[in-house]
């Protein structure tokens, strides 16, 4: 069911229960949110996706995060204001301290007019450029591998394989964590035949048809098991699957 709400004076329709962040983005408003991914639960960690909301029938306005705020009928949302920019800029300064060179933070800094860092880069962080958004942990957990943990708390919180493993025992090398990491701080090295990530080296599965690597063999096996299919060794990459399918459709005497 859809509900109607106001975002920046414009009426917007969004599915009931979706987040104001998603509704705003779908309406074309660019609200920054580094720790957000539609496939995993929101934890509102980065504190950048600030909005101001007023509930219908109330007269007070609340400054709050939008990734974990559900839409509801009659909600009035403002995505830009001096107050939003001031606090977004300060939280950005805190993030810059952890990931001074990260392109996404640099771009946001330019947009907000943040030219000088307020704080010296953090010393002795467990993982350089990590902003502790836990996207890697949440994605790995959602996919069912649970190879990564959020460890410790407070400013010494960090992410990584549990038990201090230098090689992540439950990792299958799918690389999803790398894909979602906002600051690209997870090292992953691919050769034509192998992938090294989280201290492990995996064999890559090559496409039978074109020879390009698809994913790791461990990942392919895990997916096959999850789909309750026998593990196939004659895998095709997505591009080749499409080509084979279109060839079959186009061939005469089908």
């Amino acid at each position, binding site marked *: 069911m859809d509900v109607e709400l106001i975002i920046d004076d414009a009426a917007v329709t969004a599915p009931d229960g979706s987040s104001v962040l998603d509704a705003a983005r779908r309406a074309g408003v660019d609200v920054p949110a580094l720790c957000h991914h539609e496939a995993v639960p929101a*934890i*509102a*960690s*980065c*504190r950048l996706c*600030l909005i101001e909301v007023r509930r219908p029938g109330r007269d007070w306005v609340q*400054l709050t*995060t939008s990734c*974990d*705020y*559900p839409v509801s009928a009659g909600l009035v949302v403002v995505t830009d204001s001096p*107050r939003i920019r*001031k*606090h977004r800029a*300060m*939280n950005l300064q*805190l*993030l810059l*301290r*952890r990931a001074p060179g990260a392109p996404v933070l640099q771009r946001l800094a330019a947009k907000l007019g943040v030219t000088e860092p*307020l*704080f010296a880069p*953090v010393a002795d962080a467990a993982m350089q450029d990590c*902003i*502790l958004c836990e996207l890697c942990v949440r994605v790995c957990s959602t996919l069912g591998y649970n190879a990564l943990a*959020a460890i*410790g*708390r*407070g*400013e*010494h*919180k960090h992410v990584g394989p549990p038990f201090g493993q230098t090689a992540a025992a439950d990792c299958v090398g799918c690389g999803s964590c790398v894909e979602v990491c906002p600051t690209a701080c997870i090292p992953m090295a691919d050769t034509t035949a192998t992938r090294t990530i989280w201290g492990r080296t995996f064999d890559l599965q090559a496409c039978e048809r074109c020879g390009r690597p698809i994913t790791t063999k461990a990942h392919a096996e895990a997916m096959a098991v999850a789909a309750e299919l026998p593990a196939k060794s004659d895998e095709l990459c997505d591009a080749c699957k499409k080509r084979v399918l279109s060839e079959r459709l186009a061939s005469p005497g089908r």
Partner: protein
Amino acid sequence: MTVKLADPGALARHREALAAIRSPERSVIAVCVGTGCRANGAIDVYEALRVEVEARGGARDVESRATGCQGFCQGGPLLLLLPEGIVYQHVRVKDVPEIVEKTVLGGEIVERLLYVDPPTDLQCRREEEIPFYRHQQRTLLRDNGLLDPTSIDDYIALGGYSALSKALDMGPEAVLEEVKRSGLRGRGGAGFPTGRKWEACRKAEGELKYVVCNADEGDPGAFMDDALLEGNPHCVLEGMIIGALAMGAREGHVYVRQEYPVAVDRITHAIEQARELGLLGEAILGSELSFDLRVSRGGGAFVCGEASAMMASLEGRRGVPRRRLIHLSDKGLWGRPTNLNNVETWANVPQIVLKGADWYSSIGTEGSTGTKIFSLVGKVHNTGLVEVPMGTTLREIVFGAGGGVPGGKAFKAVQTGGPSGGCLPADKLDVPVDFDTLVAEGSMMGSGGMIVMDEDTCMVDVAKYFLRFLASESCGNCTSCRDGLAILHDLLGDITEGRGTRETIALVEELADTVEATSLCALGTSAVNPVRSTLRYFREEYLAHVDDKRCPAAVCKALIRFSIDAERCNGCTLCALRCPQDAIAGVKKQLHSIDQELCIKCGICKDVCNRDAVLVR
């Protein structure tokens, strides 16, 4: 084998039977073995007493009883002799034979063990003569001195569980109405109207509902809940059972911080006893109410005092709070309707049911009814637990019950509300304490911790202390709290170590704004209160640190120096011998001197000097 009490009538008969064998004239020597006194050797005193009584008066009607915290911690180890109500303080094992001989058997007073009121030098024999007790209204704490917390019979004999009988008779709606009308507000810190919270849970959809007791008591310096759980666990239980009745809850948890092992033992034992008698479990006292409780321990995290973080902990997850757009009374523990209340809140419930909302709301102020237990600690004579009606002034608490600041030092501030609260200066001493007045002054009641500070306390150091605590307790979810508090602590470190400027203060204020405005939970949003309130009331102290590089209270090491007073030093060499850095030079019987290059300002020389010859400026 204990027989379950089949109905309220059976409970009443059990109580009568206990009264019949417990003569009101019998002598009871109540020894406080609460955590504070226990740490001071009270167990040995109790054991000695028990042995002595058995050897001498065992045949007579004399009972030695180990009680929970009686609240007068300054006088510990503490003895209360009933029925006379005589209080002996600072009791040692060697005093025990004399106490038994002279007082218990002979009816005479051992004068040197009496409390002496400093201003008047009057000896006080009985509790009600001692100013510490006289300034209190001990509705909740009184029974702590009267019962053995490991005995359910003691509790029942004092009238315990009669509120439950009455509640079962009244029915859930009437009980809820009574709690609503009483005006009871949550004692954990937020002060939310309890009746409204209960009603929301009662109305929530769902067959399985939970009640939870928040015994995480993380505010450092606050130990009211510990005293209640250690000293009178059944009154908390009774409150929870009545709550379960009113809200339709079937299961409950008592979440106790792991730093309170005695409290864990007491409440666990109390639950077992209650179950045995049929006061917990199926068909309580023969009624339709079925309710049972489990005890869960915390793992050591202040943030788990926050309701949603506590529930995460109870679900086997990291104690990370979640935002509450849906109330926990609708979707709390395991996604089910849950009512969470603080220990002291639950403890108030039996009396509200028994004596009625009109009685309860006649105590305190209009907006904050009832009494509140405060943990009065720090630079104060009478450190301990003080229970007063809401609306009592800070002055009456600190100087009346507390006896003021020791050592002739000047009062400087009182910190209320724990790490979420603020520091109030001397000109606020006449503020009547209730939920709303303290907020208006820039602090809050919090759970009841009240830390007294004097002229030797540096308020910048205090703000830094709270930031260190909160930064280490942050769950780490929010950038603003996790990193903001760490940086605020660093900035305050700059100020206390002589590197601060006016710009540092400006940055502190700016960053504090964002931490408060954009953190998800109350740990973050209220973390700025200590620094904000000290900047508000003690700004000149901050300015001394940044403008003059001076610490007026002579606390901040980088800004003070230790030296030896030529007038007082007698050259005894004690300081030089004890100095860990070998920084003190001097010949025997001649003036000693401290090498500033080597001195690390540890303060040992000042501690050991018998001539008070070490100057700190």
